[in-house]
């Protein structure tokens, strides 16, 4: 049994500054085994894996590979021991082709030969059932293709231990199934796979063992066959929490926002929104599902007045005056004053809406400075608001004068969403508000959205996790390549149905293009 162990960690600890990121972690992964690492955000999953991959070096503890104690000081060392990590944020160079990215940094013997390398890439992808064009440039690829390149990259280097950091976060259900098939094939091939995730059903369907981390501490490892969702959640969070979102029936619905035949063409001349028509009602959560980059962002921006509209109209029924305004003719500021609020959490979490180097109070002020009457900044009101949000949403921060950049992702998002909600909107658009958040924080946000819904706000929620969309929303609009491919009733739909709708137009477009 012992000689079957591929990698073993003993009492690994690592701290950053005063923060303990990992404390006494023990792990064993055998050959031909899939281990899931489960934990909330900030529980130290990625830090732990980065130590195996040579990005960080542990403060304490030992790592054994095939029974030998090793010291992994750099990514190079990790390659040497057959460890390959597929990062959450792809480490690929946009202007290079797949092959160029794959052989980057390798010191192969013999002449630099792209053709031969491409052949080997093809061989590997055939072996495991990938579908990839080795000469395609990264910037022309879809997210799932990029991920494929990352995986082939580590396989090309002869990795026997693969670490995948939240690989399914960016994939559609169909792509996820494909990926899992590939992972199972690798397992049959005798490779050891460590997969980081916080999606419980994936853990249960894919892995052999689950290791749970909580706030940097190692809670334990369980056999997947002998556990269930409730037990895992408890291990992860430390207490029992309910995973059900309370969904009330929509009440006193009025058509708040009527979008008719919306067309947008972006600066590169590409059509990003194609004949979009839908209605957002008050007291209802309208979900928007789609593969990342299918036009969700442009749609919300068009409503908020940030995107140039080529054709179509957006009608807003103002509940205060009972008039109907066309948002198309208004400036972003006027639209905001009508009560249409957008909180967009971009991939880097800070790109839109918050200024990283400014403190929480100042970020509150960004939305209210034009209200100021005097020559000097009025700090009192925004400070109250900041304190209010910190208390209500349980933001973890030393104080309200801490620069936003120093907070963790979840806390940054709470501030962003909290600020928009605080303005008592009539339409609240939240794009990816739980992106990268742990279970606890996510549910805080869902509850916030639900309470807004009860107040009669028309909520538009763009999400990535289909399970959540189905549980939280009343109706789900599916968008594919800038067109609406379907609007379904969230109470009577399945993930598979939405997944199919998500990819529907994409495949049609490709056929038309050829």
């Amino acid at each position, binding site marked *: 049994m012992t000689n079957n162990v591929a990698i073993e960690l003993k009492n690994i600890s690592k701290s950053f500054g005063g923060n303990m990121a990992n404390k006494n972690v023990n792990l064993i992964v055998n050959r031909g085994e899939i281990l899931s690492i489960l934990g909330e955000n900030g529980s130290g999953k990625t830090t732990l894996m980065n130590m195996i991959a040579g*990005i960080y070096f542990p403060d304490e503890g030992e790592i054994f590979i095939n029974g030998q104690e090793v010291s992994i000081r*750099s*990514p190079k060392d990790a390659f040497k021991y057959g460890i390959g990590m597929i990062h959450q944020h792809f480490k690929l*160079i*946009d*202007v*290079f082709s797949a092959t160029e990215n794959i*052989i980057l*940094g390798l010191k192969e013997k013999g002449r*630099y030969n792209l053709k031969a390398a491409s052949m080997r890439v093809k061989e590997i992808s055939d072996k495991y059932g990938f579908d990839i064009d080795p000469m395609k440039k990264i910037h022309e690829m879809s997210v799932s293709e990029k991920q494929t390149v990352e995986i082939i990259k580590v396989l090309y280097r002869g990795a026997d231990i693969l670490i995948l950091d939240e690989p399914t976060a960016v994939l559609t259900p169909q792509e996820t199934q494909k990926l899992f098939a590939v992972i199972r094939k690798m397992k049959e091939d005798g490779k050891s796979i460590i997969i980081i995730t916080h999606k419980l059903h994936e853990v249960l369907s894919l892995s052999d063992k689950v290791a749970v981390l909580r706030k940097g501490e190692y809670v334990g490892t369980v056999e997947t066959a002998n556990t269930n969702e409730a037990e895992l959640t408890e291990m992860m969070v430390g207490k029992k929490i309910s995973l059900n979102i309370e969904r009330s029936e929509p009440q006193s619905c009025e058509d708040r926002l009527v979008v008719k035949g919306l067309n947008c063409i972006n600066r590169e001349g590409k059509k990003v929104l194609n004949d979009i028509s839908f209605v957002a009602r008050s007291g209802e959560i309208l979900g928007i599902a789609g593969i990342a980059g299918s036009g969700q962002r442009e749609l919300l921006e068009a409503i908020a007045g940030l995107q140039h509209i080529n054709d179509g109209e957006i009608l807003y029924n103002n509940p205060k005056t009972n008039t109907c305004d066309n948002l198309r003719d208004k400036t972003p500021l006027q639209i905001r004053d009508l009560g249409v609020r957008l909180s967009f959490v971009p991939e880097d979490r800070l790109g839109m809406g918050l200024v990283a180097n400014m403190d929480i109070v100042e970020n509150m002020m960004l939305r209210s400075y034009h209200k100021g009457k005097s020559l000097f900044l009025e700090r009192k009101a925004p400070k109250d608001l900041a304190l209010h949000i910190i208390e209500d949403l349980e933001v973890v921060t030393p104080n309200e004068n801490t620069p936003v950049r120093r907070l963790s992702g979840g806390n940054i998002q709470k501030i962003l969403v909290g600020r928009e909600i605080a303005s008592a909107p009539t339409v609240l658009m939240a794009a990816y508000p739980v992106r990268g958040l742990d279970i606890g924080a996510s549910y805080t946000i869902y509850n916030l959205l639900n309470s807004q819904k009860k107040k009669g706000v028309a909520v538009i929620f763009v999400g990535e996790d289909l399970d959540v969309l189905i549980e939280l929303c009343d109706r789900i609009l599916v968008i594919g390549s800038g067109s609406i491919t379907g609007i379904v009733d969230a109470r009577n739909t399945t993930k598979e149905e939405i997944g199919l709708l998500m990819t529907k137009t994409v495949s049609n477009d490709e056929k038309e293009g050829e």
Partner: protein
Amino acid sequence: MLAFLISAIRLGMTFLFGSTGETITEKSGHLNLGIPGVMCVGASCGCYAEYLYLSEARMNASPILAILIPILATLAGGALMGLIFSFLTVTLRTNQNVTGLALTTFGVGVSDYMITKTGPIYSKGSRYFTTPLPFADDLGVIGDIFFSHGILIYLAIIIALLTSFVLNRTRIGLNLRSVGEDPATADAAGINVSLYRYSATCIGSAIAGLSGLSFIMDYLNGNWEYCIDAIGWLCIALVIFTVWKPNLAIIGSILFGALYIVSSYITGISFATKELFEMLPYIVTIIVLVFTSARDSKNSQPPKSLGLPYFREER
């Protein structure tokens, strides 16, 4: 017309050193705005070495040594400037733009000092550099245009072609480009980012230094009377103009050379108009810049991390 063409090529090749050097530097993600200063220092070192050698050897100076010594001194001077730039920006983490501009100011000062110190002795050395290839006379007009130049002109073309080859056809080139595009990715792939940035900047600066030497010894025939930092800015513009491709820069540099001197070959224009003509290369560069960014072609963009620092532990 013939004289104009020959002159344009001579001046253009001078630019070519600078733009090739800066391209190598920029491919590593370093925006070295100190290139004008690097040229000044490179030229100063080269000229001073020549001055020392010729004063020492007097009439027995060997033509080969009289060329080789200044070239080596220039390379060393340029590389030293590159080393200072890298040390400041990589190791001491200073801002690249500010550091570059400071080096330019510094280099201009050095060369001003050198001019007053040694005087126009370089004209003696210059004839070694302007000796044409032996068979140039036999080939008529073609010979005049292509083979009548001094050794540095050909060196410029060889270096540009070599750089183009290394960048696109070798593993080192692939690694270097990756460092300039996305140092974090390169780092994760096991590439030593600091080493590549240091080396590329030093090699690039050494080559750029030759630009200064070539300008004085070849184009000005050794008459170093004023500071040469203006051509440094042209070299940086040339890098942009040729969208970071050294082989394109061979043509581009001749065009720049032609634009820069065209006013001298048009009769009957005032001094002020002449100055306007000298702005042409910059205007052309801006037009190219507008076109490439409007077209948004991924293949003609600057390295993505150009001018950005990289520190691994920063999250």
